[in-house]
């Protein structure tokens, strides 16, 4: 990796972070909205912990995994709309006229997304600690949780970048937001899969990769070191990241039609 490449990625990542930081709605909303939902759900659904087989007696600890996924969805939207705006305004053409390699643009953009994901993850973990959540996997688990959330942020950020590069439209990227939210809701977000009584919902949650991401995060908070949950969670996260980054790279190559 040449020094020039690293500098290019660094500058593009810096730009991505600066842009996000200068749009308060893109910083505050992805932090406040999941915390509000967490507060509402953890008080309203506390009684669910009395169900036989529920893995913890704290619904707050159980639900703390959800903000990590909501943060990832916001990362998708932000990465996608930012890149789509670059296409629409012609900024991408400006970049295309420099000796910049396409992969530097993508890496820079995703570097910025991951920096924001890191901030979000730190906020969720801090919120959990302040609210008395006991992280079952200990300090090492918190570190793994942090890395896991960065991997999820990378995958979903790349997915947003892919959508932007494929469509060239910020509206099209934003139009996918409800679809992603449906994926989040039809998952083990609110209830462990084995306790979901409605058969089709349980099947859908089992088929939904988001369930495994949530369960991987959740295992570190409420169970401890659960090898199966972590393997499935990391496996799905890596699969999403590799697929999304590949698709985004291919779309970028098409989009940068320079000869």
């Amino acid at each position, binding site marked *: 990796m040449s020094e020039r490449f690293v500098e290019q990625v660094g500058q593009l990542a810096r730009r991505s972070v600066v842009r996000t930081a200068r749009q308060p709605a893109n910083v505050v909303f992805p932090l406040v909205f999941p915390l509000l939902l967490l507060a509402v759900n953890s008080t309203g659904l506390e009684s669910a912990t009395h169900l036989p087989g529920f893995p913890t007696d704290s619904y707050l600890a159980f639900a703390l995994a959800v903000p990590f996924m909501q943060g990832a969805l916001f990362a998708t939207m932000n990465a996608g709309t930012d890149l789509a705006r670059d296409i629409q*305004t012609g900024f991408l*053409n400006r970049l295309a006229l420099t000796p910049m390699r396409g992969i530097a643009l993508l890496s820079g953009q995703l570097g910025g997304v991951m920096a924001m994901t890191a901030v979000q993850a730190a906020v969720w973990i801090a919120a959990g600690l302040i609210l008395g959540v006991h992280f079952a996997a200990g300090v090492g688990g918190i570190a793994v949780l942090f890395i896991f959330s960065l991997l999820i942020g990378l995958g979903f950020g790349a997915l947003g970048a892919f959508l932007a590069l494929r469509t060239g439209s910020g509206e099209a990227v934003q139009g996918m937001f409800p679809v992603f939210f449906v994926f989040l809701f039809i998952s083990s977000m609110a209830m462990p899969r084995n306790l979901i009584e409605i058969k089709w919902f349980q099947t859908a949650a089992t088929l939904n990769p988001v369930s495994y991401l949530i369960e991987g995060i959740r295992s570190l908070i409420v169970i401890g070191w659960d090898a199966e949950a972590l393997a499935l969670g990391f496996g799905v996260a890596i699969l999403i990241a590799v697929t999304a980054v590949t698709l985004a790279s291919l779309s970028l190559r098409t989009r940068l039609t320079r*000869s």
Partner: protein
Amino acid sequence: MADEHGIVASGLVREFKKGPRAVDGIDLVVHPGEIYGFLGPNGAGKSTTVHMLTTLLPPTAGTATVAGYDIVREGPQVRAAIGAALQEAALDPLLTGREHLRLQTTLQGIPRAERARRGELLLERVGLSQAADRKVRGYSGGMKRRLDLALALVHSPRILFLDEPTTGLDVQSRSALWEEVRRLAQDDGVTVFLTTQYLEEADVLANRVGIIDHGRIVAEGTPAQLKAEVGRPTVEVVPADLEDKERAAGILARFGEPCAAIQGVAVRLRTGEADLAEIVRALDAEGLKVENLQLHQPSLDDVFLAKTGRSLEGAGEEEEEPELALEPA
């Protein structure tokens, strides 16, 4: 020796899927150090041509070299030799002018030690030093264009593409940009390929002008040559007493053929503007008092009219240039 080359295009074509032939066989030569004005209405194919020459869009047919490099086979070399300020200043409204230059100098591979100095130099050159730390969303149209120009100059390109650089700018901003472009060509020897839909811009700025319509170059030459091609100057005389119009027409008839006049009477001069002094003497000798006497030179709009049968103003309203992001045919 790429330095000896400007731009050479031969039979350049660009077709869009389900769209018109945006560029339909363009042949042109732009000499090193020259300002070449590419004049035409909206949708004529100017921007598509620029996108092809800057390697952003592959041609459907034809060939072109820029700075001596083939635009299809030697894209990276072409991009290293050119700077471009494309239509609509492509800037990030959330970044400051200085941040734009920092990003651009890094991406262009300017050595780290030189980046800040180069940025400052360019900010000063385009008169944006005071506004360098303000976010671009607070810039006026003229400031954005000047920053766009500075960004295009970061790596000291030999050839500069400016796609309608003054569209939407006020007269003062336009003049300032013209001055800078002229300086680049004269002092720094930069070859400038400038697209415009403004007659005046092409007239005062360009050494040579290519007029494009419906994807084809319909006329090319220096502004003076083009105007001379379509006709001779006209002289209009408005007598102090409008009753004398017929007498004035009789005197003017000695110098050319009558033509349409706005207020008084007019003739298209037979031998050119050298007759002007003779006309004044003839009017004086006949004792005819004149309220106004004007010499009208043919304009580039007359050239466009002669070549296409339409006036340049409003010609582009018929059709817009196809979306450049469309897939190739």
